[in-house]
């Protein structure tokens, strides 16, 4: 990743992480082509790695990179005159911006460009996998190999996915623009979904040896934070950021010393990150004051109720059920219904929880069976609970989760220590 390319300059990796998205965003607008912009920004960072250790880091590193990349892009275009026609004339991404001019004044990063790039990467005409890959590549500056590792696909597959999506953008003349107010709700939804998906993969990897991947979670939080800065009047990005912060706050409590999973009810809440919780709470309060609830704001409010409880027993389950009811009305979704059933079981008992669960159609989802198993145990229906844990273990792709289900199952067997307690 960045560290390879910036070896020898101690602060360059941090600058890369912070600046790559905005530099790429502005250079894409100036040169009107994604591949050309990527090449030029990479060359500019390489140039920085050569110069900055000796000459010192410039006061505005992002501006330096952007200006250098723009100049590099012009060099590249001159070098490959065929590419000039192909990229600059025929496939310009921009619609209302002036064409690339040889006027070599300094260019500065434009905040709006990042928003343009977010909406481009998450254009609804692009598939969800492609949206995620392109967002991580262009806004996060992750190398293709890193993205491939994160989603456990071969690097060649990921490389091809990126080539295809960039080609689709080019062939289709997708504009580099910020959607108008009327389009914003529809266009914002996939942006929020992509950030949430990146976070979720970071929070509980869909497969692999580790429970989560903290680098992806951090990247998602960075993107969500940037989105709230760019669209300060939109409540849902705030809700999303709050949800991510409140979920991330629990990370230190979610696994034990051996990397094993610890359920929410059993977590040591002293290990939760208070700083993240406070930031999340402040955002939730802003959302409540504004009073235009949306799916992410409601999920953040639920996470805030959990974070408020000093112990699992102190959780205000009636408020959580009420929030899930509201969320279900906005987003009638089986996963939401599953989570609501869990809250109902806490509020009204395992019978009521199982009844609510019977309404949910999620037979192919491991957490549906894990939830059933927990409720069956509470009702003393051990044989049925064993079958449900088996099904959950069969369905998950995450090794830590699978071990957790196996352990829960073992604890139910007559020879287990759990049964010999007085």
């Amino acid at each position: 990743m960045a560290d390879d390319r910036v070896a020898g300059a101690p602060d360059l990796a941090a600058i890369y992480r912070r600046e790559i998205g905005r530099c790429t965003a502005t250079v894409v607008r100036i040169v009107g082509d994604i591949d050309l912009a990527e090449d030029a920004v990479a060359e500019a960072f390489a140039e920085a790695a050569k110069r900055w250790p000796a000459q010192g880091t410039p006061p505005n590193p992002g501006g330096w990179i952007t200006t250098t990349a723009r100049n590099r892009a012009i060099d590249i275009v001159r070098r490959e005159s065929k590419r000039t026609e192909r990229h600059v004339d025929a496939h310009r991404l921009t619609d209302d911006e002036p064409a690339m001019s040889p006027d070599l004044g300094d260019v500065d990063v434009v905040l709006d460009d990042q928003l343009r790039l977010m909406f481009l990467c998450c254009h609804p005409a692009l598939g969800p996998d492609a949206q995620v890959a392109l967002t991580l590549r262009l806004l996060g500056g992750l190398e293709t190999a890193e993205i491939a590792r994160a989603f456990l696909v071969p690097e060649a597959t990921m490389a091809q996915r990126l080539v295809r999506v960039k080609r689709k953008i080019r062939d289709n003349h997708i504009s580099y623009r910020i959607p108008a107010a009327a389009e914003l709700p529809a266009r914002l939804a996939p942006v929020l979904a992509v950030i949430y998906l990146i976070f979720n993969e970071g929070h509980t990897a869909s497969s692999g040896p580790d429970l989560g991947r903290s680098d992806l979670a951090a990247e998602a939080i960075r993107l969500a934070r940037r989105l709230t800065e760019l669209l300060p009047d939109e409540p849902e990005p705030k809700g999303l950021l709050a949800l991510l912060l409140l979920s991330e706050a629990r990370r230190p409590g979610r696994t034990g010393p051996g990397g094993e999973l610890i359920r929410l009810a059993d977590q040591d809440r002293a290990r939760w990150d208070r700083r993240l919780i406070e930031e999340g709470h402040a955002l939730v309060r802003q959302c409540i004051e504004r009073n235009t609830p949306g799916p992410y704001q409601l999920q953040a409010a639920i996470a805030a109720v959990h974070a408020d409880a000093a112990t699992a027993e102190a959780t205000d389950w009636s408020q959580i059920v009420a929030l899930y009811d509201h969320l279900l009305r906005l987003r009638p979704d089986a996963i939401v219904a599953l989570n609501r059933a869990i809250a109902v079981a806490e509020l009204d008992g395992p019978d009521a929880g199982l009844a609510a669960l019977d309404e949910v159609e999620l037979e192919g989802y491991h957490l549906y069976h894990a939830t059933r198993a927990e409720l069956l145990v509470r009702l003393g229906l051990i044989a049925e609970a064993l079958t449900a844990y088996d099904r959950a273990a069969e369905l998950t792709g995450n090794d830590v989760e699978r071990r957790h289900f196996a352990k829960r199952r073992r604890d139910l067997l007559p020879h287990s220590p759990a049964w010999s307690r007085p």
Partner: protein
Amino acid sequence: MPQYMLSVWLDGDPTPPPPEQMEQMIAGVAAHQEELKAAGAWVFFGTLAPPGSATVVLADEGAVSMTDGPYAEAKEQISGFTIIEAADLDEALEWARKGSEACTWPVEVRPLLDGPPEPSD
């Protein structure tokens, strides 16, 4: 100006809708075509005879072979298309939305290349 093909793909041997519904669709599609023309976005429109009326011709080193029926053995076959001009994909997608509303079928939006074809990935 970029050009796009908006096409409708139907079951090659469809059950025709009831007459009044059919009339409504034909009127809707005609109105959509008029709107495209009024906006200066219209380039070409065609509806195709059923796929069974197609013939595939292959010329190979002087020998010509002909096959009865459409080239692709897919169940869904192209049944009609409009070529439009639009400033960008979003504009083309908006025309497609109106077109789908008019004909009640899915509409595929596909850009025409504005240069010679490049090797695909």
